[in-house]
């Protein structure tokens, strides 16, 4: 039942003297969507590349889809779909030609039929004969997903698939990912967007090469152990300045027309916000994922810089 499509431990990678990934462990249950979060340059891409056998780790090891990530990368490559961070299909080939090329690399039988099916499934028909370079970000991304899925991989590795894509296309993209997961495909997706992180089943947060947290998405806020108050109305900028660094306050962050004030010590935090009740609406709030991550990122910088 709890079969893991990815099961790695102690993954370490050094580029020169710099340790990019340091003792990374992860288990991805089959059929789940696993969110991979972290600031830029935190080692997400390097970790993904190690987990699918593209990059040899300097330490640690494990399996992907039951194959050893160091010695059986060929088996892994044939069974995963990897969508790179950068658009990596040929801009001077048409959508159809690109898909056919990928299908040939995977030695798929009935290339024509499979490509036609993909054009329909991903609604690429209207642009089938257009050069990929002329497509907008959303179309390119859909085409990349189609290409990565052509050979029916059991595991999809998506490296920041929605970077630079408009909100509507992002929503559409996530529905497709959810469809895949429902069909039993496991998905590991790295992202910067909190609204996307919320849609994952599990979340791993990595910063400066280390995993800071790894839990079911619903438990993240609890894991971080933050309490949050919400303050609205009046001159919020003044409040922001007064509360930043105040005793009991670990973090002040602006969310639209409100401030979210968070801290680990509930009593101290309550005392800190008390004086503002007079001129502002002050209410207790549920700690969201975004507060949790801003908090984690701040801590990560302190720990590893």
């Amino acid at each position, binding site marked *: 039942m709890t079969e893991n499509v990815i099961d790695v431990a102690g993954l370490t990678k050094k580029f020169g003297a710099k340790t990019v990934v340091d003792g990374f462990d992860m288990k991805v249950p089959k059929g789940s969507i696993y969110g991979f979060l972290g600031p830029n340059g935190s080692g997400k891409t390097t970790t993904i590349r190690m987990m699918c056998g*593209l990059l040899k780790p300097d330490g640690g090891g494990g399996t992907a889809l039951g194959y050893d990530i160091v010695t059986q990368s060929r088996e892994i*490559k044939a069974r995963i779909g990897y969508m790179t961070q*950068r*658009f990596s299909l040929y801009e001077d080939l048409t959508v159809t030609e690109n898909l056919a090329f990928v299908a040939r690399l995977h030695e798929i039988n009935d290339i024509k039929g499979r490509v036609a099916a993909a054009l329909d499934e991903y609604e690429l028909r209207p642009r089938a004969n257009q050069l990929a370079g002329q497509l907008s970000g959303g179309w390119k991304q859909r085409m990349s997903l189609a290409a990565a899925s052509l050979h029916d991989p059991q595991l999809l590795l998506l490296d920041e698939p929605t970077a630079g894509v408009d909100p509507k296309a992002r929503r559409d993209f996530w529905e497709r990912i959810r469809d895949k997961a429902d069909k039993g495909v496991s998905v590991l997706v790295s992202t910067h967007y909190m609204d996307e992180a919320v849609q994952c089943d599990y979340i791993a947060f990595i910063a400066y090469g280390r995993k800071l947290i790894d839990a079911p998405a619903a438990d993240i806020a609890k894991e971080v152990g933050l309490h949050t108050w919400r303050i609205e109305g009046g001159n919020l900028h003044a409040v922001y300045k007064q509360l930043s660094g105040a005793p009991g306050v670990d973090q002040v962050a602006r969310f639209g027309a409100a401030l979210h004030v968070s801290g680990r010590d509930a009593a101290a935090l309550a005392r800190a916000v008390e004086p503002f009740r007079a001129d502002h609406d002050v209410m207790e709030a549920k700690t969201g994922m975004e507060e949790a991550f801003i908090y984690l990122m701040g801590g990560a910088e302190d720990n590893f810089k």
Partner: protein
Amino acid sequence: MKAAQKVFSWSRVLAVLAKEFIQMRRDRLTFAMMVGIPIAQLVLFGYAINTDPRHLPTLIEMGDSGPATRSLIQGLKNSGYFDIQGVIGHDGAGAALASGRTMFVVSIPPLFEEKLARGERPQVMLDIDASDPVAAGAGAGAMPGIVQQALKPFAAPGDIPVETVIHRRFNPAGRTAVNIVPGLLGVILTMTMVLITAIAITRETERGTLEALLTSPAQPLEVMIGKITPYVAVGFIQTAVMLAGARLLFAVPFLGNPLAFLVAVSLFILVNLSIGFLFSTMARTQMQAMQMTIFIFLPSILLSGFMFPFYGMPVWAQAIGQVLPTTHFIRAVRAVMLKGAGFGEVWANLWPLMAILAVIATLALRRYRRTLD
């Protein structure tokens, strides 16, 4: 408050200028080109290139020996035009010239000393590889004077002691096109094959498509063979076009063994593709790949014997020329097309190509493996 915006501002010009200098300094290859190419050109054109070539390799066919013969050989040596490399047997001249081993063969006829003493004006023959008219011209022009001067003591005063017969082989009319066109094949193949391969592979790295290829089940070797084969075909098409043009437009003959020619062309295309491949493993952008190509292209034009006589260059320039594949290819092609050579004569040029191919291909494969990681 800021002052009103000026129509033209020197400080903005300076800002752009300063930025440009920073970028120029960061791009090492461009910087190397800006500094290196003028220096290289200066040295090459100033020292290496010599349109009045001297010290050209010469063999002597000794039909006789004696004081007059010795004096004649000494005269040839002293003239500076001929670099006497040895003695050759009867009828060996043709093969020695066809293989490119020598440029001149001086034949002393049998009974030379006797005839000279009797005042019978014996013939001294000079066989020239005239496929390169420039190199041939200097020696041919100087020869009669040198001979008469050297033999003066052996003849009556005011008498012309010997008759100098000059035999221009392979290109009797001294047409430069006959020599240039086969060489051009080497230069064109060098330029396009190296450049096309280097750019085609670097483009994949630059655009990120190589990463996708590597995540697919395709093996690096499969990718490499698939990518390079089309350009082998391009190389053969270029060769066919050049051959047809040489024949139809310039009436350049094709006298030798077509199979030897085909082997030479195939080897040469492979060498250039592996050079392009090597460059692609070092260049990060297509622009860099192009710049690297210039570094192989320039010496290939100037030091290969394509544009200027190879043996006219100083020894160090010849040494550089010897490691350029274009040098050996041009010799092979000239030998086959103009001198009617077969495998026997061309072998001397084929094995260096093979050696260069082995070295470059090994280097390229090693670097390619490293870039994958």
